[in-house]
């Protein structure tokens, strides 16, 4: 055990910090759930790529730097510290990317990864269907093989980023006679294909962060199959592991929120101390964000040493989503009488930022597998309790 950074790691930190200082836009971009914001964020991805920061953990030939997971955490820390824009291509970079790395052919990696790192191809996810939410094995959308093509028919829903994205990945039923988690395959579909219709869905903040995607006999070349036909469940479970585990929610994100919360408390101490629950909540935000960081470094170290992510990644999902909710609720309590006011009054800008985070935090226990599902996984697969 050595909890100090190596010289190489320190150098890396210095490099990314100085690059970000020079390149992060002064003004925050519009939300990537707006058309303008989406294009701004795509532009930012290109800037990152130009600095060779697209996805530092990937091998050089795919647009990366071959960095270790520890360096990835350092990158993320500097990224959040610099308040750099959120990654519009997170579905691609953090979910599909690692899956491609594990299950993709050389051709697929070459075809998809560099354009992903570049932000030229932005990815939506296509997990859920109207009748397959928590119960993902109930997927019905078909992809029937005809020669060198799959013909996709059906419907996906809650596809984040799908409104303006270029590609979607997801599970499709390639064996029409199959049931549950058998006969599914992991397929990548260009969203500009003939027969694809996208209906944006407005979220609680009024923006269209997700969409319904309808497939009407959409033809997809068979080289868009990831892994073996019929192995979709296995491939998807690996992706879900990344989502809950290391990649999707960097500790830095929550540490930055905790830092802002401590500042908010300090600036409003007198008002905040009226409510005796707040100080405890602020302390807990700091400790829990710190714990999340520690566990992540521990997991990264384990992976670097040849270990694997197991069902304990579900503990992550529950932990960060509840931490995020609790931090934002605490902020709302501190803001108190003006907690709902978004603009038109002094201090409303700050409130609006917290409110936006608060709304988003409400979705944390739902997306990427509800926390109820995660707790089932923890008890069944980690603790071995009966189904």
């Amino acid at each position, binding site marked *: 055990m050595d909890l100090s950074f190596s010289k190489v790691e320190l150098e890396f930190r210095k490099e990314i910090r100085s690059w970000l200082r020079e390149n992060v836009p002064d003004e925050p971009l519009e939300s990537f759930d707006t058309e303008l914001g989406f294009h701004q964020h795509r532009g930012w991805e290109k800037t990152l790529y130009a600095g060779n920061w697209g996805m530092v953990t990937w091998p050089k030939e795919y647009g990366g730097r071959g960095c270790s997971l520890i360096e990835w955490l350092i990158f993320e820390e500097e990224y959040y510290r610099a308040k750099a824009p959120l990654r519009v291509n997170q579905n691609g970079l953090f979910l599909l990317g690692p899956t491609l790395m594990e299950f993709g052919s050389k051709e697929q990696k070459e075809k998809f990864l560099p354009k992903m790192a570049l932000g030229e191809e932005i990815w939506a996810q296509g997990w859920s269907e109207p009748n397959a939410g928590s119960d993902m094995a109930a997927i019905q959308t078909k992809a029937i093989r005809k020669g060198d093509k799959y013909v996709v028919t059906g419907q996906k829903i809650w596809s984040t980023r799908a409104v303006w994205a270029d590609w979607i990945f997801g599970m499709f039923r390639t064996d029409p006679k199959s049931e549950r988690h058998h006969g599914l395959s992991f397929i990548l579909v260009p969203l500009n294909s003939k027969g694809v219709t996208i209906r944006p869905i407005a*979220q609680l903040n009024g923006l269209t962060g997700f969409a319904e995607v309808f497939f009407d006999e959409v033809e997809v070349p068979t080289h868009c199959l990831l892994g073996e036909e019929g192995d979709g469940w296995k491939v998807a479970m690996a992706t879900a592991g990344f989502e809950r585990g290391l990649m999707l929610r960097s500790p830095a994100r929550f540490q930055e929120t905790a830092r802002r919360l401590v500042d908010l408390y300090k600036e409003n101490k007198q008002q905040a101390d*009226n409510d005796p629950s707040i100080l405890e909540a602020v302390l807990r935000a700091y400790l829990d964000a710190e714990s999340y960081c520690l566990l992540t470094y521990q997991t990264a170290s384990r992976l670097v040493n040849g270990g694997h992510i197991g069902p304990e990644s579900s503990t992550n999902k529950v932990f960060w989503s509840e931490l995020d909710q609790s931090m934002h609720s605490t902020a709302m309590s501190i803001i108190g009488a003006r907690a*709902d006011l978004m603009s*038109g009054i002094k201090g409303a800008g700050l409130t609006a930022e917290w409110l936006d985070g608060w709304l988003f935090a409400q*979705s944390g226990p*739902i997306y990427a597998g509800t926390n109820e599902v995660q707790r089932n996984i923890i008890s069944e697969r980690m603790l071995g309790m009966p189904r």
Partner: protein
Amino acid sequence: MDFTFTEEQLLLRDSTRNFLTAEVTPSRLRERWKSHDVADNDLWEKMLDMGIISATIPEELGGSGLNSVDFVLLAEECGYVALLEPVVYTALVVVPLLCELEGDFPRELLSGLVRGDYRISVACPFTGLVEDADTSAFVLKFNSNKELVACSVTDAELSQIRSIDPGRRVFSLKECESGKVLMGNNRFEFLHEFLINSMAFANAAQSLGLTQRMLDLAVNYSKDRHQFKKPIGSFQAVKHLLANVAIKLEFAKPSVYRAAHSLHHGAPKRSLHISHAKIAACEAASLAAKNSLQAHGAMGYTWEYDLHIFSKRSLVLSATGGDLGFHKARLLDSLFSDDFQLGPTATFS
């Protein structure tokens, strides 16, 4: 000792419920968000005709003379439908405040309300902001001299503030000291507390209704929505989420009804009871918002689905009328004062 409502009170609640659930539908609320009309005058007229708007105005001025115990159940129903028109504040804040005042002008204002000539709003004693100022003829507020004044809205400059709740119309208004003085500052302390208590109580009562509404939405959804070939409401995890809301609601209710009683009787501990009610009811609503959303999954996170109409309103009701910090601090002050009675036998003393 009788902690029940009368048959009459319950009948009035039922008829109000029938009216409101028929008239104030989510789609009507959504229309209002979009419309350029600043008020739903049709609805206001109907509620005026039903006597709800003037319910708490004394009978000699043409109202029904209801007290806060009579009205609390109606306020709950207004919360249940997330009524946007300021009916509850009119009946539970504006009218009681005007009734506290002597002189002709307050009586005139009350009569105007009965006739439906105009609406009257109040400035929040914490932020100075005024809800529904644009549809009001007068705003009641404390001026910098701590006098209670009635400002004519036509004289004031309004600027709208955006709330996360698309149904909330709230404004800051430029200092209008020129308003008519209703009461000198010798009664400031009393009236200031009176105003806070009225608003807090009104918010608490509506929060009970909001909680029930969010719970109903989630229960119904959990019966319809199937996953793993079963209604999701048959899973213990979902059941217990909503059972927890039911428990919170069940125990918040009597604290609000006790507050209604204390307010009506001017009980010495009324401020305490109201703070208790505000905390209990707003926390119930906040748990309902959280757990109902969780029971809905992604569906509850969409703009199209109605849940957020109620959850956003519950956030507003918690923030206004004294936030939780204000009410907790007020309770703690009492709890640790030397003469505070605690323990069994102290509840109704």
